[in-house]
């Protein structure tokens, strides 16, 4: 069966070996790209849209899981969701989480028999995708469910395992002054490279912390993640609206801008 795949693996020898092993067990598989870090994987996957992604869990820049999240959020609607196979040498959290979420994974060093099994499973899934009548079932739902369950696993998504103290006040440096912003006043947080933008109704601050480190300190009942880079205070949301293409957008009470909800988090917004 012909198919296209991408390999994301930061160790060059291991990436080359995976190509060679795949060539033996699945000669018709076309490896469209081999990349060495997370950001390159996201970029190449969205550009080339391969059917299968082999993602190493520990990579520089982004983890394999963050790559999967970014791809799931930005993947175009008109194209079937990619099948994802994770690879790891040893991660105490990963294996349980993968088993629990029924996600396929490979253990390094990769065993040829195991790789053949994985390929057979992927081929079966591709065949099912092809035979399914167009629009019969939402193609993403299974994959999104798996990904949500993986992202909820402490220690796996690269964030702190257990939530420490809940943050009450944000301390933002402005010039020589420190501005104190109560989390009750925050409309939303937005990731901006290595910083997070803290947006209130009247102004905004930059704090030097990664969103993934900030997230465990926020009360998940009050602060909802709606995108890998956006966390909104639920009380600040006025309306959630779906446009004709199915995209979900939020209107806020105290801010003029509208915020996009990614397909990974759209399930939160349902009429009661």
């Amino acid at each position: 069966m012909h198919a296209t795949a991408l390999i994301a693996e930061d160790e060059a020898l291991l990436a080359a070996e995976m190509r060679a092993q795949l060539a033996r067990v699945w000669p018709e598989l076309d490896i469209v790209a081999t990349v060495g870090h997370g950001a390159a994987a996201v970029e190449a996957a969205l550009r080339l849209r391969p059917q299968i992604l082999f993602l190493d869990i520990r990579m520089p820049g982004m983890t394999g899981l963050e790559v999967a999240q970014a791809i799931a959020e930005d993947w175009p609607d008109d194209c079937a969701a990619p099948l994802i196979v994770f690879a790891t040498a040893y991660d105490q959290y990963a294996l349980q989480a993968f088993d629990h979420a029924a996600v396929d994974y490979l253990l390094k060093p990769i065993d040829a028999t195991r790789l053949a099994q994985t390929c057979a499973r992927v081929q079966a899934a591709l065949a099912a995708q092809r035979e399914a009548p167009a629009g019969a079932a939402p193609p993403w739902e299974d994959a999104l469910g798996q990904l949500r369950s993986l992202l909820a696993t402490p220690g796996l998504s690269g964030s702190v395992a257990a939530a420490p103290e809940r943050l009450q006040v944000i301390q933002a440096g402005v010039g020589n002054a420190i501005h104190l912003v109560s989390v009750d006043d925050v409309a939303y947080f937005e990731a901006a490279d290595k910083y997070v933008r803290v947006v209130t109704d009247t102004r905004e601050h930059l704090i030097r912390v990664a969103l993934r480190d900030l997230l465990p300190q926020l009360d998940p009942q009050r602060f909802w993640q709606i995108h890998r880079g956006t966390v909104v205070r639920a009380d600040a949301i006025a309306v959630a609206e779906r446009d004709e293409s199915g995209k979900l957008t939020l209107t806020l009470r105290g801010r003029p801008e509208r915020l996009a909800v990614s397909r990974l988090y759209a399930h939160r917004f349902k009429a009661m």
Partner: protein
Amino acid sequence: MTPVETDRWHYLRHAAVVATFSAVIALGLGIAKGGDWIQQLVYAEAIGLSIWACTDFGRLLFKLDPETHWPTGWRMIAMQTGAVIVGYVIGTWIGDQYCGCSTFEVWRHSARTFAGYLVLCIATTVAISFFFLSRGRDQRRLRQIATAQRDASEAQLKLLESQLEPHMLFNTLANLRVLIGIDPPRAQAMLDQLIAFLRATLSGSQQPFHALSAEFARLSDYLQLMQVRMGDRLQTRLALPRDLADLPVPPLVLQPLVENAIKHGLEPHVGGGRIEISAERSGTHVVLRVRDTGAGLAAGASAAGTRFGLEQVRRRLQTIYGAAATLDLRPAGGSEGGTDAIVTLPA
């Protein structure tokens, strides 16, 4: 925790010990003074066991030391004095009932004889109490030693686990497996480095010191293993002045610092970077430095992961050198950024 002092049987054991002591005293008195041997025994047992009962149950009225299960300080003395007086009166009364005479008559006839009994009685009580108390202390000490030993072996296991980091080990083996197929001589070289690294890690805790040159050789093995995996993303520079080659240092003391530099500095850094390990003499001290040009401390790397390694190094330095050795972690100066870990040892 051994339940010795907390179970119900210890009362019986205490009573048995007291009864034996009392029998010995009765025997001694019988031999020394003659007289009715059985009567001596009844008095001795009655007084002994009465004082024991007042002591062993009386102590429950006080706040007990959780370790020894005895009162502390003045409470112990007060409890013991009270127990001797009450126990002596009760025991004597029981003895008097048995032989149908009155000991307090003795007091009237010969105050010295009576005082002799009393002193004997007090001395015995103090001796037996001291016996139980010191036994309690011994047991506490044994428990403390056992706990300390368990803590030490747990720490050692954790250290070993952190040095033989499974993720590193399996990734190295995966690389080795590939090299065996495509480049056997390089695979052999890598295997030799892995063997040297494993041997050093496993035997490192057995010898207190090795030469700084040996330390550098082990770090070099480790870095070359990492270099096979990371390729161009890892550059290394090791600088050891010849006059410091024989300086004794604790084995693998720098290893956790180099691991942190890789794991939190270079691995998450897309562009990789350089690790520099150097040693230099500075006055009466030697400065060992592990520097990386990676992600830097601010990038969330100062989180829990790095702390265990640093804590290990700090604790080892503290045990061996006391306050004379230090470990500092700070952002590296210069345009390349990264982190500087500095160990200062007395030369």
